[in-house]
């Protein structure tokens, strides 16, 4: 049993369900290049022994990662990362970031404050995430 490649944590106050927090942390690690294709995620037992959370939460997060095409389970061996989301991919999306910057300028000009912008982003993001889920 080597060192685990990723360590999870939970924020009870975030309002985001625990399994989605775990999914988010894997995504984040992928984006930061901390995780790459072929890496083995810690086993459910290792995660719960470290973080003291319900094993079903971890299983659900791993199933979601499989559903998203980011990981695959090899029965009896473990769950492995199947796709990299390295920093290269963020850089490739420069134009998108440009658009976002331009949008932020517009939002401020329209009188939206930072909490307002955050709230609008969160609610729109959630809405479109639900729609995307319904379509798949």
């Amino acid at each position, binding site marked *: 049993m080597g060192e685990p490649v990723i360590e999870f944590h939970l924020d009870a106050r975030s309002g985001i369900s625990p399994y989605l927090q775990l999914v988010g942390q894997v995504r984040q690690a992928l984006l930061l290049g901390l995780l790459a294709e072929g890496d083995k995620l810690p086993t459910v037992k290792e995660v719960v022994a470290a973080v003291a959370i*319900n094993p079903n939460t971890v299983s659900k997060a791993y199933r979601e990662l499989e559903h998203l095409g980011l990981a695959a389970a090899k029965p009896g061996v473990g769950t492995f990362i199947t796709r990299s989301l390295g920093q290269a991919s963020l850089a490739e999306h420069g134009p998108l970031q440009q658009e976002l910057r331009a949008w932020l300028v517009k939002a401020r000009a329209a009188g939206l404050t930072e909490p307002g912008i955050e709230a609008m982003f969160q*609610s729109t993001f959630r809405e479109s995430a639900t729609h995307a889920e319904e379509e798949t």
Partner: protein
Amino acid sequence: MSAILQAHALGKRYGRRQALAECTLEIPPGHVVGLVGPNGAGKSTLLKIACGMLAPSSGRIEVLGEAPAGSPAQLARVGYVAQDTPVYAGLSVADHLKFGAATNPRWDAALARTRIEQLGLDPKQKAGRLSGGQRAQLALTIAVAKRPELLLLDEPVASLDPLARRTFMRHLMESVAENGTSVILSSHLVSDLERVCDYLVVLVSSRVQLAGETEDLLGTHHRIVCTRREASSLPAGLTVVGATHTERQSTFIVRGPAEPPVGDWAAESLDLEDLVLTYMEHAAEPAPAAAATPSSTDHTPENAR
């Protein structure tokens, strides 16, 4: 698979005091169940009945499909750790393991030894000289090494400091992951339970107020903040669990479909603690109306202000 615990109109009376009343529950297997409620709500009574230490005064209960402690085989399938994780002060850690081995047919000696090693406990140490956290861990070790299908834990972390709580929960979750054990653990603090429990039973004043999978409960309860109005003017399909009013504003905790139907209110999700506290307050009020089944769930979402 059938329910790990099935109770119908279960009641327990101590003389004139009703400790548990009309308790009807059906808990599916494979969960870590949080039994939550204020002190004196009947949590310990329910757990004692479930492990067969107490006989109910009325109603029926089956645990793992049999009467609690109905047979030696049934006894072997259920582990129970009483409040404050009692151990024998005069016996050493090794003596506890010997005792466990002698009294439990499915005893896993290797597991018990490994756990004691991992915990760094000295087998020769007298249990009376262990710290609270170590004592709790010893009691858990014995309950787990019994290899039960269901583990009943009465306030296992109540007397522990935050670090010992976390350690205890980590070990408990590890053994759940390893053995697929179902667990029912009680606490009067939601914060002890919210990370580990995926099923919740709220017990207040000897009655079950709420029971269900945590995620479902969180998904179907919302806080609605709106201009002042009566609960009766809320859309059909919403059951009001709690309501507070100021001169201008009303705040409702409701059970029902998620989307807010009009523009002058905001609907927010609740955290587990708010949810449980609302039901506890609600229980102190007169009896609630039966939950209405939502007739329609296609409310058009409006932008919350």
